[in-house]
């Protein structure tokens, strides 16, 4: 019997030896992220996880977004002038900005205009030695027509650089401030080219950012060290480790056991557990995305606006909000999420025309749109989660059902019809569970006699079928890359976006595009928003898309951590993070 007690002793000792090296734990932050980055160069990617891992840790941009106003403000460029015709932008560059010193590269000079030219000519110039390296695809830059927009990037002198445009574009500075427009080292590029290993530029990164790469083990972890010569002040963190843990349940477990200090994208169902935990804070960036139901406007019977409107009328977005998002999101009354409307309101309150059927949208300003993050422990109250049935609301729903039946009868479809609904098989930033959403739609459309067949598809298959354009309907959405309505409206509804596969409703209206293009060349913010509202009105009138939900980006972290920034457009920023 005594033997057993002895066997227990080492186990108890081991359990007691729980202390990690305190100094090391104080200087390091462990961040649990769901997937490996697809590249270490944000120019090449589109996924939020890759931006989280790279954009703000390894690199700087010429401009950055001011956390309060979301307007471009100085970063590596200290100052800029725009010519009156809006075709030339001249940037003065910061001096004494050091590139990373790593085992694979020793910089001989600080950052200068050559690096800016190198970083941006690669994107558009097909003759550039790096253009075809790593696939030659730059998704963000092709979406904004960079190659047609930027004529050339001229080096004026070591500290000045000029962008010459083919036509004026009001969002140009936003492009430069986006997570994708990072500054790479021209000297490193030349060194790799001389060694005939240009592909390493995107795999063994060199930037000017607050952290430098120490070690990357695919599917296991990324280890960053602080960049000792960083030009800006940073937090006290010496090490930043990204722990790649695909399962969200495992990320939560690590978060609870203290193996992670912060965790990205907790599942909606986990938020309650996290909120109840005494040591863990939960914060979110208000949705800069929109989930939509896209009906194929080029295919009968959905080419009839009355049919689309009937479907819109019977949809109950609140049910989706509760069942799929667990109440942690906001209803989408239009395609543009709240931050875009705030901008419009700030510009001029009286121009804010609600182009929706519900006049009472009051976008709440969450603290997370500002930075650094504030814990929002009780951001969601219980009564929001479990609404009591409202007799007035029920009555309204009945009226809408009658109206929808009338519309279908007018379209000669009073008997209903069958349709197939496509959706992504996995979770998306704008929709955590497409299949569940589809099942709700199945129930909601049943009273109209519409029978839905659900088909969840993997990302590539779904993309291919959208490119083919034979679908009836699809649950899709868009996450904005920058605070410009153009980014959402153009990608979801423009005529070119049909061939790109992002305009899933295949709706094409030249008048809509005229408004978008006018907005893009309009320097005055007030008028620009009027154009966007006119464009939205056109889309709404024709039921081009049915907006469902604006989702939130959540971040869970220990209360002992301060200075984490979750950016509403793109990645997370650890520059100022520190442990108390």
């Amino acid at each position, binding site marked *: 019997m005594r*033997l057993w007690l002895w*066997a227990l002793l080492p*186990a108890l000792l*081991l*359990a007691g*030896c*729980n*202390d*990690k*090296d305190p100094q*090391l*734990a104080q200087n*390091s932050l*462990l961040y649990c992220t769901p997937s490996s980055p697809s590249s270490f160069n944000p120019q090449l990617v589109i996924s939020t996880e890759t931006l989280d891992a790279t954009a703000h840790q390894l690199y700087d941009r010429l401009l950055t977004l001011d956390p309060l106003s979301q307007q471009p403000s100085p970063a590596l460029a200290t100052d800029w002038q725009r010519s009156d015709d809006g075709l030339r932008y001249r940037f003065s560059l910061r001096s004494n900005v050091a590139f990373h010193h790593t085992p694979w590269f020793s910089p001989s000079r600080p950052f200068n205009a050559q690096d800016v030219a190198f970083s941006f000519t690669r994107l558009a110039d097909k003759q550039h030695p790096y253009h075809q390296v790593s696939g030659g695809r730059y998704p963000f830059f092709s979406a904004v027509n960079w190659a047609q927009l930027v004529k050339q990037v001229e080096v004026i002198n070591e500290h000045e650089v000029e962008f010459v445009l083919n036509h004026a574009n009001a969002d140009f500075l936003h492009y430069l401030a986006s997570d994708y427009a990072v500054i790479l080292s021209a000297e490193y590029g030349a060194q790799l080219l001389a060694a005939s290993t240009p592909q390493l530029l995107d795999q063994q990164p060199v930037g000017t950012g607050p952290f430098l790469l*120490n*070690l990357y083990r*695919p*599917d*296991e*972890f990324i*280890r960053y060290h602080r960049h000792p010569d960083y030009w800006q002040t940073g937090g006290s963190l010496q*090490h930043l*480790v990204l*722990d790649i*843990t695909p399962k969200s349940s*495992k990320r939560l*477990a*690590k978060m*609870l*056991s*203290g*193996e992670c200090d912060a965790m990205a994208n907790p599942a909606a169902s986990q938020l309650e557990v996290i909120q109840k935990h005494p040591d863990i804070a939960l914060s979110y960036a208000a949705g800069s995305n929109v989930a939509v139901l896209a009906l194929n406007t080029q295919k009968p019977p959905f080419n009839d606006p009355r049919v689309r409107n009937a479907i819109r009328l019977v949809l109950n977005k609140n049910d989706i909000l509760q069942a799929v998002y667990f109440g942690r999101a906001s209803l989408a009354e239009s395609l543009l999420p709240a931050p875009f409307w705030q901008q419009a309101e700030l510009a001029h309150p009286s121009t804010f025309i609600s182009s929706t059927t519900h006049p009472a949208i009051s976008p709440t300003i969450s603290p997370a749109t500002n930075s650094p993050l504030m814990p929002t422990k009780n951001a969601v109250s219980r009564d929001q989660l479990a609404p009591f049935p409202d007799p007035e609301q029920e009555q309204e729903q009945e009226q809408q059902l009658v109206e929808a039946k009338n519309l279908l009868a007018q379209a000669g479809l009073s008997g209903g019809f069958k349709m197939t609904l496509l959706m992504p098989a996995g979770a998306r930033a704008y929709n955590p569970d497409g299949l569940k959403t589809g099942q709700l739609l199945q129930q909601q459309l049943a009273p109209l006699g519409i029978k839905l067949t659900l088909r969840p598809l993997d990302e590539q298959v779904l993309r291919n079928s959208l490119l083919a354009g034979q679908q009836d309907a699809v649950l899709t959405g868009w996450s904005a890359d920058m605070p410009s309505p153009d980014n959402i409206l153009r990608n979801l509804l423009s005529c070119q976006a049909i061939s790109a596969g992002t305009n899933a409703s295949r709706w094409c209206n030249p008048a809509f595009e005229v408004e978008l293009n006018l907005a893009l060349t309009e320097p005055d913010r007030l008028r620009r928003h009027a154009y966007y509202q006119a464009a939205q009105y056109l889309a709404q009138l024709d039921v081009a898309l049915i907006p469902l939900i604006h989702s939130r980006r959540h971040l869970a972290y220990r209360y002992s951590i301060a200075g984490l920034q979750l950016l509403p457009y793109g990645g997370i920023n650890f520059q100022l993070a520190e442990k108390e």
Partner: protein
Amino acid sequence: MLLYLLRRLGLLISTLLMLTLIAFSLEFQLLSQPTQSFIQGYSQFLQQLLAGDFGVSSVSGLPVLGALGQYFPATLELCLAAFIISLLVGVPAGTWAALHLNRWPDTTILTGTLIGYSVPVFWLGLLLVMFFSLNLGWLPVSGQLSLLYEIKQVTGIMTIDTLLTDASYRWPAFFDALRHLVLPALVLAIVPTTEVIRQIRSALLEVLKQNYIRAALTKGISENYVILRHGLRNAFPMAIPTLGLQFGTVLTSAIMTEIVFDWPGLGRWLITSIALQDYAAIKAGTLAIATFTIVASAAVEVLSTLIYPARRRAIYASQR
């Protein structure tokens, strides 16, 4: 004696050849190239293997051999730890059961082994994580070492590598590695422990019936001494060869254990490679696991034959 070793070696090599043949024919079915006949392709495949060329991973673009060298030691560490646990627990428990034949300790232990043998690894692993890591907070959820520590890979066995580092956090890192090892090793040890208990129990029961044990006991030598000195010593050689065959079972459950605990070993690497359709890695991982099983069980058999005189009869018997 030499002849016996040569025969064993011959058997080992032909088994391994069969293995490569199966591995190659699978690949030949999948990616048949009309430019080569089966024989030509196979001989080329063998040459590459002998030269240490396991191909290049289609995912990372790096030679597969490097990945093997990285992941194999982690699996080895886990399996060794599990084996040590199974011996530490299994031998006393088996002995105790044998000494109390058909009384309550015996039935309790036997029931325990039956339960242990039938409990799914996946479920048990998650349950232990829930209790020890999430409820009590004693042990980490997964991994081989906290990512706080930067330990250079020398042997790949983390408990050794942490001791080899010259960083200031050598001891905290070592204990951290041990703490990471506890749960996966315990889970992996369950099945071999039940086997050790049953083998030791039945071997000891067999030995205790022998006349020399009775003689020793009637001489008045203390019971404990007789059991340790004569009983267990003669029971071991009977039990060990069957235990050697457990390597295969242990490796199979090691794959599942590695997935439950995110242990960066061969099994998890193999499953990830299957998901990513990395054929070179799948082939190399399968070959490595199968080779390890075959070599290990052959080694156990040869060693036990060499060490225990009573088993040498096998050598002479096979010469006839």
